[in-house]
């Protein structure tokens, strides 16, 4: 095993990418939901 090299380490990569994907999807969903709600309210006004 070479010295000073990280062996393996995929668990860190999976953790970082998973958190990124979850947060981005959650934010996209939140934008979508808020937009839908707002369009619904405006519909009732007009």
């Amino acid at each position, binding site marked *: 095993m070479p010295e000073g*090299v990280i062996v393996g380490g*995929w668990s860190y*990569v999976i*953790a*970082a990418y998973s*958190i990124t994907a979850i947060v981005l999807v959650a934010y996209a969903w939140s*934008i979508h939901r808020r937009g839908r709600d*707002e369009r619904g*309210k405006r519909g009732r006004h007009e």
Partner: protein
Amino acid sequence: MNVRRSLAIAGLLLLVVGTYMGLFVAPPERHMGEVQRIMYVHVPSAWNAMLLYTFAFGFAIASLWSGKPEWDDRLVGAVEVAVVLNALLLVQGSIWGRATWGVWWDWDVRLTTSLVMLLLFAGVLTLRRMASAERRAQWSAVATIVAFVDVPLVYYCVRWWRSLHQIQSSPETVDPAMVIPLRLNAIGILLLGVAWLMARAAIEKARRRRDEAPLPSRVIVKETAHA
């Protein structure tokens, strides 16, 4: 709507291709091994958070200068998307730091200024909720301009002061095979971020219109709701 959707789709495609290349095509780093792949999400998050904060700074000046409420709509869009990316970059960096530096966190100047940046702009969003409708745009713009002081500090601190975090990489210090997924993801998140900015601005505009709606229409809404 069409522009927004095209931006989002193009951004998503770039992100998918960039992530695939980053995870499966790019080589591991000679010392960091596979862990270096976190770079392909961490660095684009950081770039785009700072870019969107810079947009917000521009919108703040335009908002104060013109007094047009559309600039405030865009401001909240830019700040909100940037805050999400700012939070992400801290978490991604912490995971990368645990693997390479050996610690989740340390109070070095880059980490500290990045955390301060998140707190300052989260503060801008909180301030908006507390401000009255008439004062909201003005307060948000002034708070954004003041909070923006930290953004160039985040960028330059690693050049000016000693830190645990390394200084910026450049195409000369990064293997060419790593540069491509890095750029794809950076542009992907940028396009996606701009699409979200526009969508969030549209929501803010709709809310504002609703709040500004003349009183009679509200009364009618109430009556029809009862009927």
